[in-house]
């Protein structure tokens, strides 16, 4: 086991940067999730650790050693591919055994290890099958088994759940978390699914256009997003973002389409220099209330079981989502409503760079 680090790692494809000057440390035994939309560079970052891509600049460090010049096979990391990459002509047993054959493990020891790992993942009945005779979930477990069997210094997982159906994904998510906790192996986990990231990661690193946006524990990113991108990407539905102007010099209140929102008690310092602003409020911090400070019209009401999402229009341009309990009285489409904003829940960002100026936390 080992820690993993990117030090100023940069990778360009045809001069277009895929990962730009990435600095990131993954502690020994940590499960770090690389999160971002497709094309954000998260998979490229993972492949640099594996040695499948060479960084154009910067260093990749595994276990305190720069590995830029180390061949992939000598890096002692195991990868779980999105497609699982099982060898179609080998049965499950041979697939799991495959990495061991090149490591000078004797046949009997190999057999024993394979059977232990297979048993731990509930694969012992399937050892004689070929990959094409397995279900998606079973293939996924074989891919995991093949990674585990080597006892590598780090696991690299590239969207390992994206080919599973929703129910299985939920189950497997929990299985992987438990497995990682049991083995204590440093893990880099790539996904575009923020729910996966929130539920699995010890920490999350959010990437956009090859640039690291923020790193931290899930709740920190959720509660204190460093910028608009992170704010919108985390949470479902994402944070409501409204263009705003500050009212007066006190800056305890921001004016938006259809009304105003209260800022935190300390307001926004130094806001005088900022030309345009955006405020962000999570749907769960909004409520329909006659005493609300925002005036809106109901566009859509979505029942999601325990929750209700109410999509409203403020003024001409702005839309936002209010989350309500299903037990609360539901408005009808077209109703005029007022929306109350919970105190101390408003994030303030600059309108141009999207950087965080202030807010709760």
């Amino acid at each position: 086991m080992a820690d993993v680090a990117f030090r100023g790692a940069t990778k360009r494809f045809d001069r277009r940067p895929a990962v730009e000057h990435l600095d990131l440390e993954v502690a020994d035994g940590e499960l770090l999730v690389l999160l971002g939309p497709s094309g954000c560079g998260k998979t490229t970052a993972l492949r640099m650790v594996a040695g499948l891509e060479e960084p154009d600049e910067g260093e990749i460090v595994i276990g305190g050693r720069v590995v830029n010049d180390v061949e992939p096979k000598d890096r002692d990391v195991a990868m779980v591919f999105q497609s699982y990459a099982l060898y179609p002509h080998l049965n499950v047993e041979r697939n799991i055994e495959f990495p061991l054959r090149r490591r000078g493990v004797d046949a009997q020891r190999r057999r024993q290890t394979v059977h232990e790992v297979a048993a731990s993942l509930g694969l012992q009945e399937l050892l004689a099958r070929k990959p094409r005779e397995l279900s998606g979930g079973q293939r996924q477990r074989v891919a995991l088994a093949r990674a585990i069997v080597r006892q590598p210094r780090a696991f690299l997982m590239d969207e390992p759940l994206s080919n599973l159906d929703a129910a299985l994904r939920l189950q497997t998510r929990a299985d992987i978390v438990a497995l990682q906790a049991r083995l204590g192996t440093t893990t880099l986990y790539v996904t575009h699914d923020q729910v996966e990231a929130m539920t699995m990661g010890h920490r999350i690193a959010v990437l956009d256009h090859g640039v690291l946006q923020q790193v931290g524990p899930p709740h920190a990113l959720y509660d204190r997003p460093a910028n608009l991108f992170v704010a919108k990407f985390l949470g479902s539905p994402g944070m409501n973002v409204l263009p705003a102007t500050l009212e007066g010099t006190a800056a305890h209140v921001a004016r938006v389409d259809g009304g105003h929102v209260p800022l935190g008690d300390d307001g926004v310092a130094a806001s005088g220099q900022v030309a345009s602003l955006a405020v962000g409020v999570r749907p769960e911090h909004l409520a329909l209330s006659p005493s609300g400070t925002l005036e809106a019209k109901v566009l859509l009401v979505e029942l999601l079981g325990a929750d209700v999402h109410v999509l409203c229009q403020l003024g001409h341009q702005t839309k936002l989502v209010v989350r309500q309990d299903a037990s609360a009285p539901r408005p009808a489409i077209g109703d005029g409503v007022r929306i109350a904003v919970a105190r101390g829940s408003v994030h303030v960002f600059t309108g141009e760079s999207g950087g965080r100026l202030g807010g709760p936390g």
Partner: protein
Amino acid sequence: MRPDSRNGSGERGSRCRRGRASRRRRRLAARYTLLTIGALVVLAPLYLTFVSSLLPPSALAERPPPLFPLDPQWHDYVIAWTQGDLGVYLRNSAIQTGIIVCGQLVTSVLAGYAFAFLRFPFKRALFVVFLATLMIPFEVTLVTNTQTISELGWYNTFAGLTVPFLATGVGTFLLRQAFLQIPRDLREAATLDGYGRLRFLLRIALPLARPALAALGVFSFLAAWNQYLWPLVVTGSGNGVRTVQIGLKLLQGTEVSRTDVALAGTVIAVLPLLVLLVVFQKQLVRSLTAGAVK
């Protein structure tokens, strides 16, 4: 079409159905008739050859020709095998075909692997060069190739018979395509599992390219075994490396000029390939139609 056949209800509907059924039966009968006539026409030459090869010489001129060898004479086969030297020719053909098939498989696998997986300067240009060989029929290169063979002293040798055919543009193309079908993830997984280029080729790529290998193998077997022009040119004298196809010409021509013996020789020469056809029909069809259907 009967006037009521468009009405689909009640009594008239069932009559309509009966009409359709009988029409279908008639069509089926017509189809089988056509198929059978076709089969007879296609088979007749080979079948008559087979029957004639078993007839006593006196019965050869009987008309109509006997359709069953009531009193099969295997004697002609013995003559063809011994006096006609067919045994030797068959052995030579087996060696010649074996060398060509193995050679083509090896060179195609190596080049196909390089074109599919490796990066090197002028790769595209070289691939075009490989494909360009398809545009040059072997017959066009005959003038100089005969000279080359004589300068190398390769007349009447297996080298002369086989070396010009040890590489194939089609085969390289076929295997490159097969290798390109292998997902990149699989290659990378093998890399991380510690398998270098050669081991990846042997343990992953070749097993996965088995259908293409089989198709190429069957195809080059067929082509090599049936070669006529080149073996004729390079096996000028003596039986040393003469192949079965050339042996057939000699059977028919000078050496043992007896029709029944020649026919027995023909059967011996074609039999291995008919077996090949029945056993490897799928691979054969695949290789013959590689360029036909997109």
